[in-house]
């Protein structure tokens, strides 16, 4: 009886995840394989002519292979800003949790304020212009880091709270300096929360459309999300090419997930239990 209900539950879970994850993906693949006439019907059907490869070739050719440049830009932006964000957040989360005092409580307030107060576009551009970072990849990376940092710091400081202080003290007694304590004792223990941050923030930065739109204008600075707009207009859209582009953009994160899924799932699960 008991194993029977397990099977039923398993099947239900399987069915739900199929509907939620696989059906939309199948729709993307099917639409990307259609001719523009078929795609404009928005039907969940097998394409009349299977032209996936032609569509993908077409998407690549649009505007002098802008999508290749967009992939380079998006990858640079995502990897750099997430790497900086994670290291800074881990350090700050550790200090803010371990040391109590006027300075750290002020820092805590600032982190909270950064979560609550929205950033405004035009003043941000003024700051970038003053620093000579407007239309520069470095400026965009700093903006993404600033945007993601508060959330990551909160996550880290909550996690550090679960690490016994005795560990720091033992390392200090053995003669380790503060940097050494952090890098060799604390950071390895933060692995689960680091994985969580990397996954959440990579998705957020990779999918950011409005940020690069305002802070990183220019054809040479295109990001992948911006290329989606090459195929839509009010009275004439090429849905097949749009979906082929979506497919191209979806595939790299998906491949990464296939390779790293063990670490990602482990990290998420660990984080969930401990944090």
């Amino acid at each position, binding site marked *: 009886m008991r194993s029977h209900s397990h099977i039923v539950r398993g099947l239900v879970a399987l069915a739900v995840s199929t509907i939620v994850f696989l059906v939309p993906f199948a729709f993307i693949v099917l639409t990307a394989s259609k001719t523009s006439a078929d795609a*404009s019907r928005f039907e969940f059907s097998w394409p009349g002519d299977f032209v996936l490869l032609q569509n993908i070739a077409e998407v690549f050719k649009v505007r002098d292979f802008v999508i290749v440049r967009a992939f380079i830009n998006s990858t640079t932006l995502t*990897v*750099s800003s997430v790497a900086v964000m994670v*290291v800074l957040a881990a350090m700050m989360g550790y200090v803010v949790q371990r040391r109590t005092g006027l300075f750290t409580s002020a820092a805590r307030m600032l982190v909270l304020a950064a979560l609550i107060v929205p950033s405004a576009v*035009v003043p941000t551009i003024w700051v970038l212009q003053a620093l000579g970072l407007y239309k520069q990849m470095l400026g965009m990376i700093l903006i993404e880091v600033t945007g993601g940092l508060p959330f990551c710091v909160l996550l880290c400081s909550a996690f550090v709270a679960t690490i016994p202080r005795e560990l720091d003290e033992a390392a200090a007694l053995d003669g380790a300096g503060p940097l050494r304590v952090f890098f060799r004792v604390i950071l390895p223990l933060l692995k689960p929360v680091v994985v969580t941050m990397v996954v959440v923030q990579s998705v957020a930065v990779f999918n950011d459309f409005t940020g690069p739109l305002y802070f990183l204008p220019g054809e*040479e600075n295109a990001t992948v999300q911006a290329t989606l707009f090459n195929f839509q*207009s009010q009275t004439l859209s090429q849905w097949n090419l749009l979906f082929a582009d979506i497919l191209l953009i979806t595939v790299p994160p998906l491949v990464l997930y296939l390779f790293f899924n063990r670490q990602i799932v482990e990290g998420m699960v660990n984080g969930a239990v401990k944090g």
Partner: protein
Amino acid sequence: MKSSNAPRRLVALIGSMVVVLCSAACSVGSLGTGEQADGDTTITYLVFNEPSTVKAANALIAAFEKDNPAIKVKLDTMPTGSDGDNVVKTRLSTGEMSDVFSYNSGSLLQAIRPDEYLVSLSDQSWVKDLDKSYLPAVSTAKGLYGAPTGGTTPGGVVYNKAVYAKLGLKIPKTWDQFRANNLLIKKSGIATPVEQTFGDAWTAQLVILADFANIAAVAPQWAADYTANKAHNVDQPALGSWQHLRQLHDDGLLNKDFASATYDKGVEALATGKAANYPMLAGVIDAVRQNHPQYLKDIGMFAMPTATGTDSHLTLFLPSGYYIPKTSTGAKLDAAKKLVAFTQTAKGCELLIQSGSYGPFVNRLCQVPADAPAAIKELQTYVAAGNTGPALESVSPIKGPDLPQLAVEVGSGIRTADSGAKLYDQNVLQQAQQLGLPGW
């Protein structure tokens, strides 16, 4: 040993990643920019990122650079819709606007404060070639700021000629004739009389917007009165458009899925003869040409039938304009003016037509090409007879942002025409007050 190595490796990995990628990041921005010779002027040129627009812009740049070897033009794009509006406003107010940019004419132009941000082009020689109807759409009291980017977009009723031929129907000129046609089509059962696609809310406005040339034909002062808070939607003749929208629904003329159908569905229904009429922009013709080319010959178009006269007038949505921001100065300003002037020559027009534009145009050097789709040529009878007029948004700065939603409500039979028009007047009031117009 092993456990002490792992963290060090992690640190080294992250550290080197940061260093390498940061340095790579700083240089990747310059990827793809070419070398620049001394003495050359490089200007940037910003257009909407619709495929056809970009294609035309590239052709234009190639021809312009050939004629002006000392000037290099760099193309830049922005999305359409509200994202594009925000990009334009942001870049103007931070002084980062491209040297030449295209943006909507009419009410949207007024919203970016042309007097403050744009260079006046009143003294340019090409201004005399422009159609008089276009000038107000790119001007303020202080000057003229824009040159047309392409042809006008007619709005009216796109119809299926095969259905009309089968039932022996004539092109209607008045609303009563249109209604009689539709009732006949309904009775015959061979097609949906009128296609509506409220899944894309903007499509619901066409019955109202495309009727404006008819209103202006009997009440030429209406737009000025409307801007001055003296004419309103709740009164005739404007109320008539709202009543038509409601009547189409009440007569049971619409397709069954009108509430959720999308624009592309509407195009297909019309092309294949499942629907007889579709109140829409002439852009439908391009969509049919791309997605259903075998049916292109069945597509025709006529002006919105009138309830205020005996002869219907075609409403023309005026083209966007090319503008130059005040931040372009010196050699760049001269180059930018040259580029704008180039678009207004016969050669510029030829390039427009080659990239798929067919008018009708607002520059007298530019004529509708002989190989334009039949539906466009059909509309030439209105142009020849002088029975055309600009859309309301080109002659008045006020257009309430809630019009699509209110049109959907009235067109779906949820709200009466009077109530819809009244709510829209309130919406217009807010818009006018925001713009600080006198009399509100």
